[in-house]
């Protein structure tokens, strides 16, 4: 029976940069375990004779010709940025947490 531990859920939260409260961890633990059990059931049915699929849609990717189209202007590209400097997006300090 698949079980997500509280530590695993906290770890996933860290990876996704989401701070989780104890209550949220408890709720997610229940929900994720239901999902994991469902997947386990599917795996029981999928025997050697069933090829693995990555996508349920039986389509192949459309490959577009290598032709340029009008890009966004710099102003348009930066329009939603909280802060800009010299035509670039400003990101807060990257190192410093450690």
């Amino acid at each position, binding site marked *: 029976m698949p079980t997500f531990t509280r530590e695993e859920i906290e*770890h996933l939260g*860290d*990876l996704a*940069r989401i701070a989780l409260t104890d209550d949220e961890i408890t709720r997610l633990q229940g929900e994720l375990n239901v999902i994991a059990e469902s997947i386990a059931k599917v795996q029981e049915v999928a025997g050697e004779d069933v090829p693995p699929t*990555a*996508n349920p*849609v039986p*389509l*192949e*990717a*459309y*490959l*577009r*010709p*290598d*032709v*340029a*189209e009008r*890009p*966004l*202007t*710099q102003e348009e*590209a*930066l329009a939603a940025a909280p802060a800009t*400097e*010299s*035509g*670039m*997006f*400003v*990101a*807060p*300090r*990257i*190192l410093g947490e450690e």
Partner: protein
Amino acid sequence: MADKLMKYADAVSKFDPVFGLEVHVELSTNTKLFCPAHIEFGGEPNSQLTPVSLGLPGSLPVVNKTAIDYAVKLGLALHCEIAEWSQFARKNYFYPDMPRDYQISQYDKPLNGNGYLDVELDDGEIFRVQIERAHVEDDAGKNTHVGGADGRIEGADHSLCDYNRAGVPLVEIVTKPVEGAGERAPEIAGAYVRAIRDIVKALNISHARMEQGNMRADVNVSLRRNEGDPLGTRSETKNVNTFKGIEKTMAYEIRRQAAILDAGGEILQETRHWDESSQSTAGGRVKSDADDYRYFPDPDLVMVHVTSDHIEELAKQMPEMPRERRARLKSEWGFSDLEMRDAVNADALDLIEATVQAGAKASGARKWWMGELSREANARDLTLAELPITPEDVAQVEALIAKGSLNDKLAKQTVSGVLAGEGTPEEVVSKHGYQVVSDDGALLAAIDEAFAANPDIVEKLKAGNMKPMGAIIGSVMKATHGQADAKAVRSIVSEKIASL
């Protein structure tokens, strides 16, 4: 803190180095991998973007067909198995160089797998490097760190993001662990990356300019006591972007790790950086959950299908590969190993070939490009190809020499004129009136003058002492402003002496 290093020779006698390389090659398509934004080096920041390259909500990636074709060609050149069905996956990480917060790469179904590349070393030995995969992914943007020292990320106050490069198609070529290289590991690594550079240039699928970041390599190195032992813990030095840097990184890591292991220490599995100014690698972050990328198939992209017919079609378009081409040219031109290697290292093969195609002899073409013109290029800090002289010009100079219109000295002056922008060799020749004087009348007059001015030498010559002949020829050359044919002068002087 400076690392303790073991002498290289000791390190490789005590330990067996094993390495792996991840080479990133930017493809020279017009547009990005997943959107039709035009790609141009050095444009205004954030001027080559679409909603897709910015990862704006609701935007959807569409695969560039040319990028896939280029990647298949590279896979064929690396003797890979080309997957008819391959798949893009999301590699999740948080870093401001990628606005989407994930890179679109390939994971368990790469386009190219299981290949190899035979690398020719300086002494002609061939070393086979096995290739694990060559998959397609998109590049990240560029960050500039502000407020710290020397633009370093450490101590920076904030960073500026330019996403022009975000979404440029890359092929990442991953080797299998390279074993059995021994002390030649750094040399093999350098030669391997050079060979890849030559291949992508021959295929015309990348600008392949290391200094512009079109190619860069991650260098993984580990040591073990004996060949055949299980692999040791490796360090991973990221984004090395010069050939020399790749070789030096590997030699440095072998020396550093050997000193640690020899003292009974353990190697940390970590990412490091090559620092050109201190000629050393510096530790970065220790590998941990930061590398928990949680790959999964990108739900926005269905599988890429490359039919076997299409692969065959691309295989037919493959040009001759650099190693085969070199072997062919070497034998056609009759160059020695050394002459060939020098020409390769000087990036002169294309120029010599074009000069030969324009009618010159290979030996003559080599003499100009590897001699006078190499010196000029060095002095001007240019590559040979950047010099303002074409292979056709060089062939024309050679033709004028062959016709007897120019001697060596005049030929050099003609080439100087071409380099100075005075026109084609023929134009330079006619502008300055360069012409070997072979008109006997003019020559005879100059010789008579020289005889009259040097009666003592004439006596010696008459007596059969031919040593001072040079002085007569010298004064004739001077009188004709270097335009006389020295051979013709010598034979006329000899005849005249004999008849006196």
